[in-house]
């Protein structure tokens, strides 16, 4: 873990980003449908072939593929990600406007999940086979098997319509707008993570150092929080990174259900309206997020596990 290692990793990220941008460009180019046509259709206009041709020329879509790609890449490197075809605004502005609500939702649901899944998973592991273990199992089963959108709709029905506690449609501003989408996302994750925490803690409870700590007269509480948990968090770190990545990419289904103005919601409409610049920038964002999180996970491993940091001899 040194500066050279970090520089190499950052270099890799750059190379992968360029590669991914090329692949997306090819895929979008190959995809059926015509953005010029779609732009008119979305405005309720049935264009003549001449109008479509003219629009294609204006968007640069009549140029050879490689010219299109190089032009786009060059603009990107200058921070210009183009103008959205369907919304007619700079892609950068559109992305930034959606970014903050998405980050808020991602962090809120992750924190909510950890607050429930960690204690629940630990309790289930410590009292294996007890009532709480069975309850946790049932809860996990429910969380994993219930589709997000259905749980979200039930939540809207119960909390917003029947009880009238929270708004049905979310504007992404204010805490009350965040609660239901965050709970919906957390619910499914709690199911998965409770099981993961339980497995990781059980695995660690079987390690010799737990017997060692007991032999030294450590209380079970000390053993659990100061010995088992620091070790059990290591296998969970990778999973958390993946979850954070997918959350920061926007969670299309849940965002659509709650009309939440996040990236996922935007990506869905960008795809359906052949909005090439928006789709490409979105894909780049996803790739960047995953690679950066991967890097952060690797760095945290080194920080949290001395065997990685100092290089285990055995």
């Amino acid at each position, binding site marked *: 873990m040194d500066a050279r290692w970090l520089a190499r990793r950052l270099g890799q990220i750059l190379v992968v980003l360029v590669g991914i941008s090329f692949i997306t460009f090819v895929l979008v180019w190959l995809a059926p449908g015509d953005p010029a046509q779609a732009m008119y259709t979305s405005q309720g206009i049935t264009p003549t072939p001449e109008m479509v041709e003219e629009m294609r020329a204006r968007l640069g879509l009549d140029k050879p593929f490689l010219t299109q790609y190089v032009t786009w890449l060059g603009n990107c490197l200058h921070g210009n990600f183009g103008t959205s075809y369907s919304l007619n605004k700079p892609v950068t502005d559109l992305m930034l406007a959606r970014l903050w609500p998405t980050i808020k939702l991602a962090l809120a649901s992750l924190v909510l999940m950890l607050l429930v899944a960690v204690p629940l998973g630990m309790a289930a592991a410590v009292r294996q086979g007890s009532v709480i273990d069975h309850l946790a199992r049932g809860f996990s089963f429910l969380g994993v098997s219930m589709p997000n959108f259905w749980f979200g709709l039930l939540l809207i029905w119960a909390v917003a319509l029947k009880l009238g506690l929270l708004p049905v449609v979310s504007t992404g501003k204010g805490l009350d707008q965040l609660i239901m989408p965050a709970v919906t996302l957390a619910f499914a994750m709690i199911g998965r993570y409770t099981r993961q925490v339980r497995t990781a803690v059980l695995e660690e409870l079987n390690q*010799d*150092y737990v*017997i*060692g*700590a*007991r*032999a*030294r*007269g*450590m*209380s*079970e509480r*000390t053993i659990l929080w*100061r*010995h088992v948990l*620091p*070790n059990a968090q*290591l296998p969970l770190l990778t999973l958390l990174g993946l979850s954070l990545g997918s959350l920061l990419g926007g969670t299309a289904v849940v965002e659509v259900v709650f009309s939440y103005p996040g990236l996922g919601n935007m990506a869905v409409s960008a795809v359906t309206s052949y909005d090439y610049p928006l789709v490409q920038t979105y894909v780049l964002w996803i790739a960047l997020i995953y690679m950066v999180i991967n890097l952060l996970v690797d760095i945290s491993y080194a920080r*949290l*596990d*001395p*065997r990685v940091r*100092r290089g*285990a*001899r*055995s």
Partner: protein
Amino acid sequence: MTGSRPGREDPPEKNQVDGTPLLSVQRMTVSYDGTPAVSDVSLDVTPGEIVAIVGESGSGKTTVIRAVLGLLPSSGQVSSGDIRYEGRSLLDLDQAQWLDLRRHRMSMVFQDTGAMLNPVRRIGAQFVEYIRTAEPDVTRAQARERAEAMLERMALPDPRRVMDSYAFELSGGMRQRVGIAMAMTFQPALLLADEPTSALDVTMQAQIVRQMLALRRQEGTAIMIVTHNLGVAAHMADTIMVMRAGHVLELGPTDQIIDHPTHEYTASLLASMPSL
């Protein structure tokens, strides 16, 4: 072979004055899920005495000392008999009493101390944690000082560096000395040692054995050592218990067991023993 035990010493006089045993295992049977693993074991350890339990793996010798420390796996339990320590039965202890016992009165050294320490925390942090758990009034700095003094006593070079190391960064011999240093911090009356030298090379084995003998000489610590190495047992122990398949085959003074084994299994163990 029997003449090569110059290191063995008689237990200190003061500990032989009063005849009540420190530890008394009485007709103990330990079962795992109802199946006896160790049957009908009886054994007394007087203060300052060194008792060696020898036998091949699976003979139940580790189960015996785990039972004494109350650290049987969850499927195991003492199904009959009694274990009395300092006059009271250990089978009646509640969790708080067990913790107190393990903090102050009885401690254990394992085959690989490294594995018995948390791999992601420094040795020093765990040593300090141990001292301050047993004696909450001690400050962090005092505990550190005490830990370093204990490590120094175990002839560990550069105790400070050891404190700042993780278990995986130390050699096997150093880890074992860390283990003994921790176990001896509160001068327990009884030290349980589970194959403490088995993972070490011969030179290091001899050093660890010498250090344990010195502890008995200086502190009057009784030691119950489990080993499959009859050489170590003969060298250290006053009393030897031979176990096989969960039963005690022989129990008696070391000289008697070594010179006149009554059981042919003991004789075969002796025959296969490399001379020290």
